[in-house]
């Protein structure tokens, strides 16, 4: 299944891109993160790291669908 993955801030730095098309067999957001974590050296998931699917915050256990856009969001630092 192909999904689009977006990386923000330091995650973009680590993965070397803002977004990429990923072919994955991961069935959940969490499983996808763990696959990409190994590939790009992303940090361990923690409470300050969040995911969004199709521009909405998403639970880590949310199932993936073909064509989903998944954003991985490092700890926010606005303000």
């Amino acid at each position: 299944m192909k999904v689009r993955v977006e990386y923000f801030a330091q995650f973009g730095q680590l993965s070397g891109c803002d977004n990429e098309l990923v072919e994955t067999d991961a069935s959940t957001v969490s499983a996808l993160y763990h696959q990409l974590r190994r590939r790009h050296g992303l940090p361990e998931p923690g409470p300050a790291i969040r995911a969004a699917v199709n521009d909405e915050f998403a639970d880590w256990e949310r199932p993936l669908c073909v064509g989903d856009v998944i954003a991985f969001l490092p700890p926010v630092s606005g303000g």
Partner: protein
Amino acid sequence: MSATFQLDIEPIRPERLLPSLNNQTCGAVVTFDGRVRDHNDGRSVLRLDYTAHQKLAVAEGQRVVDEALEKFAVEHVVCVHRIGHLAIGDIAVWVGVSAAHRGAAFEASRYVIDEVKQRVPIWKNEFYSDGTEAWVDPTKTSR
């Protein structure tokens, strides 16, 4: 009553935002602005960039100001967060709240800035005087 959250790539001008808080029934206006400091976590900062997940930031920021309107007896709530390139002294985030009484105005403005800093997907890349740069991770800094 109104609640507005915006991202803005242009410099934030409080004098343009204040009129939206005016109301003849409002006795109290509290504003907060967060500015770019020349140091952070012990390092000398030259400038910084803010980036956002824009759709999500606008949606989450709007939820924050809507919550403030619901939780506190306030009339108008405005929050604007800057994105893009910022210089030292630039306003990074501005919050303005008007209310009949001052207690609610103080509490709501504090709520908005605290929640925005916790929840809204905006990130800060600092450029230091030694030529290096780094994305700030508040979960790792020593402060």
